[in-house]
């Protein structure tokens, strides 16, 4: 991928949204960057860490989002420019600090970038973080294109410094992970020294001080609003006094533009595109509400603009505005597969809204095509459920857990958590896990389940977590379990990386975001420090793993089992082997096997030859871990050293 730090203002480059955000921060001369891996925001920090040495900046993967924001806040109050990036749920984690950092202010530019995930492609919630900006009373920017992603990030630092308040940029999956052409700007690296001392005070106070700071925050917002009225990130296209206008932000802009074009409504519909969406540039919006009779809001997920503009419209009613008919989520005009206010936007959704409101017909594809396609889809196309990669140790760990719980025989509960092993709820994970919410909720909820014996719930409780998740969110819950006597077994699936988000390092990796060697904080040492029984085992030693788990389940208390085996994608095997199935030994469908490797174990490298009626190995997918060979009841899977 292209080098992000090129000093060639005016050069056009194809950049991913996250890369553009990183580039914008570089152009602003960012000094301190922090975050926690989280889709769709992970690449922002990865990109910045790739050039950190070159630009003498500091980039860190923090243990979780609140520490990340706190650390960045400290850098900013010391006069540096700081950026923190995270996924939407990360905003929940750092909300505690955000709700005080807004009041305690900043000196250097302090920018928070949140990546939302409409349709929850890889998240357990669709939450719309724009609400945090309103909640915290801080300026909010929503880029609509990769170019804006860069330009807004750059400007956000200036804005933050001028107003002395943290500023927020909200991106979504479709922007962060899409690529578009970006014209680069100049990079202005500014050497600054950090300063903070006895003469400084950085607090949101309490009592009267807090109220006073709160009032100061309101003033800052007013200043921001004045700037937003003139911002180049807001514009209007289309008929000057159109009766029908679309009010949109973010990805909604390009979708609306294309929908209007496809429906040939360029003459009738105006589009007000907003890039500064909190506080609202009220005068600008009012100037268009004045001529509009119908307004359609096109925005990702929550009716954020919709509700806030309606409040403005209510205020303006006394001046004779309206009546205006508003369309959007409330009117069910903009809706996804499951209804309004859920699922991501696309051109077709906007087309659907426009054709319904304006009573038009639009046929993207012939009816015949659609019905033929539907028929084929349902009759011959199988679905493709997610599965663990070939060689993934989680498959082994979850099989061990399944066996141990069956051996135990008391219908034990397994709570899940966030990571690749979230797939423990699916058939690829033998559907072992029954719960899944947020980071740390596995052991968190297990604290509850493990203390309900007095109410009749007397079963083993197993909580899953990953290594990165452990550091992020599990430690307080583990302490709670010991302190409050919860009977639970925490299984840490330690594959030595933060896998799901792209193999970033964590405190146990021995390396930091900058690739430098660092101290290892060992999970087992933390457990010993807390005072709970802890064991370490390789899940690929299946018999040992099952026996140890089973024995741990037979007695009460809070315990930890660390299943440790490196992720094969992050740490590919050096020695190449060839794995294949001896067709004579394979008994396939017969009693004694019943297609164990393909039907139950489910590694994508184990495939079934319907013609021969035997198992085979897909050698382009197989990664050579050899675990299936150990499980094969006929020892028919052979591992050979490759030539």
């Amino acid at each position, binding site marked *: 991928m292209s080098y992000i730090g090129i000093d060639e203002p005016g050069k056009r480059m194809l950049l991913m949204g996250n890369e553009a955000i990183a580039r914008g921060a570089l152009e602003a001369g960012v000094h301190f960057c922090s975050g926690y891996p989280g889709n769709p925001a992970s690449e922002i920090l990865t990109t910045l860490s790739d050039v950190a040495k070159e630009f003498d900046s500091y980039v860190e993967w923090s243990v979780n989002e609140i520490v990340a924001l706190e650390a960045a806040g400290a850098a900013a109050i010391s006069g540096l420019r700081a950026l923190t990036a995270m996924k939407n749920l990360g905003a929940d984690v750092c909300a505690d600090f955000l709700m005080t950092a807004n009041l305690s202010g900043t000196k250097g530019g302090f920018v928070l970038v949140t990546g939302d995930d409409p349709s929850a492609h890889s998240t357990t919630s669709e939450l719309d973080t724009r609400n945090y900006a309103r909640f915290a009373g801080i300026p909010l920017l929503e880029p609509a294109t990769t170019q804006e992603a860069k330009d807004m990030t750059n400007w956000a630092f200036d804005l933050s410094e001028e107003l002395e308040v943290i500023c927020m940029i909200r991106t979504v999956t479709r922007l962060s992970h899409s690529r578009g052409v970006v014209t680069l700007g100049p990079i202005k690296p500014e050497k600054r020294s950090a300063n903070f001392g006895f003469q400084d005070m950085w607090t949101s106070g309490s009592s009267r001080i807090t109220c006073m700071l709160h009032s100061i925050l309101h003033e800052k917002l007013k200043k921001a609003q004045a700037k937003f009225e003139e911002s180049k990130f807001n514009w209007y296209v289309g008929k000057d006094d159109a009766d029908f206008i679309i009010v949109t932000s973010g990805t909604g802009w390009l979708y609306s533009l294309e929908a209007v074009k496809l429906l040939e409504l360029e003459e009738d519909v105006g589009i007000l595109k907003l890039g500064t969406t909190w506080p609202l540039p009220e005068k600008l919006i009012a100037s268009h509400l004045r001529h509009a009779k119908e307004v359609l809001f096109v925005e990702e997920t929550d009716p954020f603009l919709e509700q806030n503009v309606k409040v403005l419209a209510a205020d303006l009613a006394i001046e004779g505005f309206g009546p205006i008919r508003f369309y959007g989520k409330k009117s069910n005009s903009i809706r996804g597969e499951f209804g309004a206010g859920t699922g991501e936007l696309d051109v077709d959704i906007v087309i659907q809204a426009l054709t319904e409101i304006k009573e038009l017909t639009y046929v993207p594809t012939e009816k015949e095509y659609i019905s033929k396609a539907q028929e084929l889809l349902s009759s011959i196309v199988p679905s493709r459920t997610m599965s663990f990669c070939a060689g993934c140790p989680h498959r082994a760990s979850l099989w061990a857990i399944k066996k141990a719980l*069956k051996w135990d*025989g008391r219908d034990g509960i397994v709570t899940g958590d966030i990571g690749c092993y979230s797939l423990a709820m699916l058939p690829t994970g033998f559907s072992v896990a029954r719960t899944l919410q947020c980071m740390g909720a596995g052991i968190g909820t297990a604290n509850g389940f493990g203390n309900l014996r007095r109410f009749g719930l007397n079963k083993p409780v197993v909580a899953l977590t990953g290594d990165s998740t452990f550091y992020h969110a599990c430690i307080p819950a583990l302490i709670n379990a010991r302190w409050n006597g919860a009977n639970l077994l925490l299984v840490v699936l330690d594959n030595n990386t933060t896998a799901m988000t792209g193999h970033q390092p964590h405190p146990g990796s021995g390396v930091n975001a900058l690739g430098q060697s660092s101290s290892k904080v060992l999970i087992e040492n933390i457990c010993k420090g807390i005072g709970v029984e802890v064991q370490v085992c390789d899940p690929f030693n299946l018999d040992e793993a099952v026996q140890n788990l089973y024995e741990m389940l037979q007695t009460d208390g809070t315990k930890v089992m660390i299943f440790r085996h490196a992720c094969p994608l992050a740490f590919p095997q050096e020695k190449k082997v060839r794995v294949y199935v001896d067709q004579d030994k394979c008994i396939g469908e017969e009693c*004694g096997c*019943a*297609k164990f490797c393909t039907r139950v174990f489910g590694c994508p490298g184990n495939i079934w030859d319907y013609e021969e009626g035997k198992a085979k190995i897909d050698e382009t997918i197989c990664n050579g871990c050899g675990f299936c060979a150990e*499980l094969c009841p006929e020892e028919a899977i052979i591992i050979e050293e490759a030539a």
Partner: protein
Amino acid sequence: MYRIEIKGPRELQNEVLDKELCSACGACTNLCPYIDMVAGRAVMIEPCNLSEGKCYDFCPRTYIDVPTLDNDLFGTYRSDLRIGSNIMVIKARARDDEIKSAAQYGGVVSALVTYALESGEIEAAVLAGASIDQINPKPTVVRNRSDVLQCAGSKYIVCPTITEVLEAAKKTTGKIGLVGTPCQVTSVRKMQASKFETAADKIGLVIGLFCTWALLPQAQDYIKDLVGSVNLVKFDVPPPPANMFIIETETKKVEVSLDEMRRFIMPACNVCFDMTSEFADISVGTVEGAADWNTVIVRTGFGKELFRQAREAGIIETAPLEKERLDHLYEASLNRKKKVLKEMESKKISCLIIREEDRSKLLS
């Protein structure tokens, strides 16, 4: 003719495992990745998708087709309803001092297995061996006299011997033998009669034990609590009316009322029809009041030949069994059958297939 329906793992789960009828014989385990033996019961990790399986076919609690098994082994249905088909019932004991001192009673089992190995009749045998803690026996493959002596002594806690039998059979070129309880012997005979091909045709010698119950492995915690962490030497249950369970450690003997131990008896034993291993080649039990002798029932032609050779070689000595003791054996076995049949009737357990006239006779 009786119609046997061979079913699969789901039915094994429903008909046997869920109903607590599993006697932990071990026959359904080590056949596939789906069934394990854990702490005195077979555990199905998940049922495979087959509708017919070895697990169901070999299990001694899915169906016991007594007429077919009798025909296969003895050529005809049993004439003796009390203790099953037999050629003779006799008293016997080992003559070798080493075997006698290692044995609990007459040492006949150890002597016969050792003889079968040393004479080349079998290459290996699967026995219930003592485990390290002397409490939980585990299936042990033996190949020589000293291996056999390690396994000598009565076991009261269940040992799933059959888990190792097919594996052992696969590995030998010649025949193997085994010593099992009645349910275990039944499962092996079902294996040999099964339509599923296995290495069971390499099983040569089957010695069955007299048995009225086995204890769940949980009994070991109770025993350990009683005696503390010392080395155990053996357990013993003297004949009625003693009503005792005796635990011998290296330093002392602890006597526990048998009633204390009854709660650890496997539920499966309460519906066991077979007290004397009716399908073995040779069945061996105690002699009441004569701790250095065994009661031996010789059943098959092969058993008869081996027994004769062992006696001629001076491995064992025999004596006639006193009529009183024989009558007592018949009575005990018959009473058990009556009791069990009534129990099966009330619990609607229908796995036992015998002639209708015999069933009515026993139930009246």
